[in-house]
């Protein structure tokens, strides 16, 4: 019978399909054996386009999902960039006992569908999660068409590539070779750092350093200029081409886009509801399914928006959120707060120097939302320890804020504090045993500046314990304050040219000393 099939006309016409499938199977098996790759390297989530760096949104989502898939957090946070840049997990962990906090927020381009898929991805892999925090800004990212059903949102792609068992079948072993093949075809080499899609993608280098150490947090944009005036200017440059005549107009323009959650008809329950409630219900059910409590957190908003029609809209959001929590007693909320405008470096992003301070405020509200019983139920984390660093690389991707670009002098890389500033920040996680920090300064750094240079950790000044010369550089060593231990090795260091312990605000000064202070190496021991 089998021979008669092989001799049939139908087989003759279609045999190429069978041979082709067999060839594909053989090729894939051969690649799987000779060039095995991890599942994360075989996803169809990134583009590897010609002459193009990957879009940060996708790159950072892929990176977070890869880094933390087995992180075993007991509190998981998903949402938009306001949380990505706003919530520093070690600070939350210092305030909420037993918390292992994962900040899985990335960008609003995920949409609520994307936040949901990210939450689902982690919840399905980590049964340790007891609290799911949905953290998004009411300024622009309330559930509405633009954040829920807009075609450009990448939630469906996240679902497809990370959560769909069907699409997993299409993640062929050969896909692991895609970056190599595309680089070779496009550039004739597999080692051309200036053109490869991943290496210099915007924001990737520092995020790659900071996210694993911090538990998912990355600092906000670090661009020259005065943060105090940046909030609306940034908004103008990024979202609008128009230049409003004054700040009030800019607030009106930006606020007009905040939008409110529309009323929609719920066909399933045959009732009118809002898109926000529908969205929160999805997250609530997901959390319940995995034995977790949902906490809906409103990101802070600049107080410049707490006025007029925009302010009324935000107040209505707050009322709505409270009503939702009342209707669903299992759901907690972190209410909307207004912060001074100069603490934002975009319309909705808390600026890096204020992220820790805001996180403290948030953590206290979150602790209340979870409640003592909820906190007591948090399991002790069995997740891997967060990576630590003993040296901070001064080159590309500096995990800092307020530094200028790297420069090379006699083969050594230096960075100075930006124009107009006398202070800059460094973020890192060090081994808990580390007690000292040494910084190498450039040989041409004025000695009066070196004598005034200071380091503070979370607002507490470090004691200077020694000066020495190392390879022609002046090395100064400070003892880390004991209180820094409460952040499990996570450090927010303020480097000051005038002995300050806390970030002085963002007013730029023409005579600032920062640009004269060059550093080449930061080491912990």
């Amino acid at each position: 019978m089998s021979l008669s099939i092989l001799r049939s006309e139908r087989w003759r016409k279609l045999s190429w399909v069978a041979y082709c499938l067999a060839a594909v199977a053989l090729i894939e098996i051969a690649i799987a054996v000779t060039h095995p790759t991890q599942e994360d390297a075989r996803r169809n989530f990134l583009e590897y386009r010609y002459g193009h760096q990957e879009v940060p949104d996708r790159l950072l989502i892929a990176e977070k999902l890869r880094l933390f898939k087995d992180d075993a957090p007991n509190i998981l946070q998903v949402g938009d960039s306001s949380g990505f840049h706003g919530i520093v997990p070690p600070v939350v962990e210092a305030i909420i006992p037993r918390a292992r906090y994962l900040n899985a927020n990335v960008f609003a381009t995920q949409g609520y569908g994307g936040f949901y898929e990210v939450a689902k991805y982690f919840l399905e892999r980590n049964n340790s999660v007891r609290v799911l925090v949905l953290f998004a800004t009411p300024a622009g990212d309330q559930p509405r068409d633009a954040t829920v059903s807009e075609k450009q949102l990448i939630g469906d792609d996240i679902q497809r590539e990370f959560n769909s068992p069907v699409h997993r079948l299409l993640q062929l072993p050969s896909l692991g070779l895609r970056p190599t093949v595309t680089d070779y075809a496009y550039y004739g080499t597999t080692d051309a750092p200036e053109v490869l899609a991943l290496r210099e993608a915007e924001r990737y280098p520092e995020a790659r350093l900071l996210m694993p150490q911090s538990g998912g947090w990355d600092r906000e944009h670090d661009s020259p200029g005065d943060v105090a005036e940046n909030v609306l200017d940034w908004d103008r440059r990024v979202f609008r081409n128009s230049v409003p005549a004054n700040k009030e107009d800019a607030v009106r323009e930006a606020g007009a886009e905040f939008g409110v959650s529309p009323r929609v008809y719920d066909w399933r329950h045959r009732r009118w509801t809002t898109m926000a409630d529908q969205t929160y219900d999805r997250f609530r059910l997901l959390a319940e399914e995995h034995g977790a409590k949902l906490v809906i957190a409103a990101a802070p908003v600049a107080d410049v928006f707490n006025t007029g029609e925009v302010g009324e809209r935000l107040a209505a959001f707050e009322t709505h959120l409270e009503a939702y929590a009342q209707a669903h007693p299992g759901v907690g909320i972190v209410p909307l707060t207004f912060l001074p405008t100069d603490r934002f470096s975009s319309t909705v992003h808390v600026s890096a120097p204020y992220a820790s301070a805001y996180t403290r405020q948030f953590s206290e509200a979150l602790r209340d939302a979870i409640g003592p019983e909820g906190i007591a139920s948090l399991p002790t984390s069995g997740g891997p320890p967060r990576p630590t660093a003993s040296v901070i690389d001064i080159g590309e991707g500096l995990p800092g804020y307020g530094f200028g670009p790297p420069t090379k002098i006699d083969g050594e890389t230096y960075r100075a504090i930006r124009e107009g500033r006398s202070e800059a920040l460094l973020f890192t996680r060090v081994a808990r045993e580390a007690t000292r920090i040494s910084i190498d300064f450039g040989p041409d750094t004025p000695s009066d500046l070196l004598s005034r240079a200071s380091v503070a950790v979370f607002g507490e000044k470090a004691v200077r314990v020694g000066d020495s010369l190392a390879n022609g550089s002046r090395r100064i060593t400070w003892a880390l304050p004991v209180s820094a231990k409460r952040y499990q090795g996570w450090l927010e260091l303020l480097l000051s040219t005038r002995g300050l312990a806390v970030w002085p605000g963002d007013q730029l000064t023409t005579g600032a000393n920062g640009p004269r202070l060059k550093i080449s190496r930061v080491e912990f021991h």
Partner: protein
Amino acid sequence: MQFNSVAYIFGFLPFVVAGWALLRRTRYANPFIACVSLYFYGSSRVWYLAPLFFTALLDYYIGQKVYESKDPLRRRNLTAFSVVANLGLLSYFKYGHWLTAKFAPALAGVGLALPVISVGLPPAISFYTFQSMSYTIDIYRREFKPYRSVIDYLSFVTFFPHLVAGPIMRARDLLPQLARGRSLPSAEQVSMALFMILFGLFQKIVVADNMAAVVDEISADLSKPGIPVAPGLGLIFAYAFAIQIYCDFAAYSTIARWSAKLLNVELMRNFATPYFSTGPSEFWQRWHISLSTWLRDYLYIPLGGNRGSTARSYRNLMLTMVIGGLWHGAGILFIVWGFWHGCLLVAYRLVPIDRALARFGALEKVIAAALFFQLVCVGWIFFRAAPAQIPAIFHSIAAVPPVLLAPAENKQFLGYVWLMSLMWAPMLVFDYFGWRRGGEFPDVFPSFNTALKVLVSLLLIYAIVFFGRRQASEFIYFAF
């Protein structure tokens, strides 16, 4: 739903083919086709179905009435009503925003408030209104007898392979196929269909989408105020868009045609290696054939066609092409694009360069095709660019000679040339073989032996695996 989605290729299409194969001998076959087609079309937005139903049911009803009526005046009035209703619907969705936005400020100046229409454009509305309209016109002309079954009629209008972006089928070609019981496709048809769907995916995901990225990138550069676009990139823009729109639309037509074939339905050929044309007449016999023949039959010929004086014939040509341009979308540059092609048709009739060159030999024929390709690309600039970008594009094209003299200083230009060559070369090879057979690549495929079929298929599969764009863009003609 998109043809280039995993859901379509591995879910929807196999389900529909299997469902039809099971139901084909029952009276549920066409209801099934109509239902899945409506799901295919309405799955992204349910309200898209409303204008589709309006058009379909209106023309079904009017078609019956026109056929039944013996009164010529009533027949004419009913047909005119169908045309006006279809064009009115099309105009409302397609041109309403454009026109009201243009006129509102002017009218506001004289104290009249004109509300600006802002309603989303249902995909494919240009296609199905033209198709539905031609149904009524054919009945009026007594070229076609309407079918009684509304289900058969709905399955014709909504038939998913061609619903969204054509080919624009006439009822007399498609309805009889759908209405009668059909046998299963032959092994050869299935073999061809599987290969051609793979080929269409390659055209779209690898070639068209990679070129779309280049076009979008240069377009973004062109939109930056005060920053001139790099020398030569205007030319890349034109060429890349020429490749993109061809491969995008041809891919849609290929997948549509061969998806239909799996249901044993024959859709008309929509492309036949158009960039090998040596002149505009030949081009329009090879490019978007279903639209050009529609315009010929329902516009150009009724306008008088070639009958009458030469000037009148040229006027008819220009009018047809300008309306053809406007069919593509609301915007002055679509009209300019149509006008440009009208001018080319007239110019080549006045001075038949193509025929003069082709008389000399093969090389001259290649020159004629290359020359005409440049002229087509000029048209594509109007089709794709925004009005404010046009001067910068031509300025950048004018700067091509210095770029060629100093290639090392223009790495971006050279990089794009390399990418275009990488993507376009296989398509040129496929098209060349098709062109030599006087058709398309599908005409060549059956002559391959099994080994060659496997080899070509593997190349296409791995081109998609490695070079296919993941962030799939919609087919360009969805917007029309």
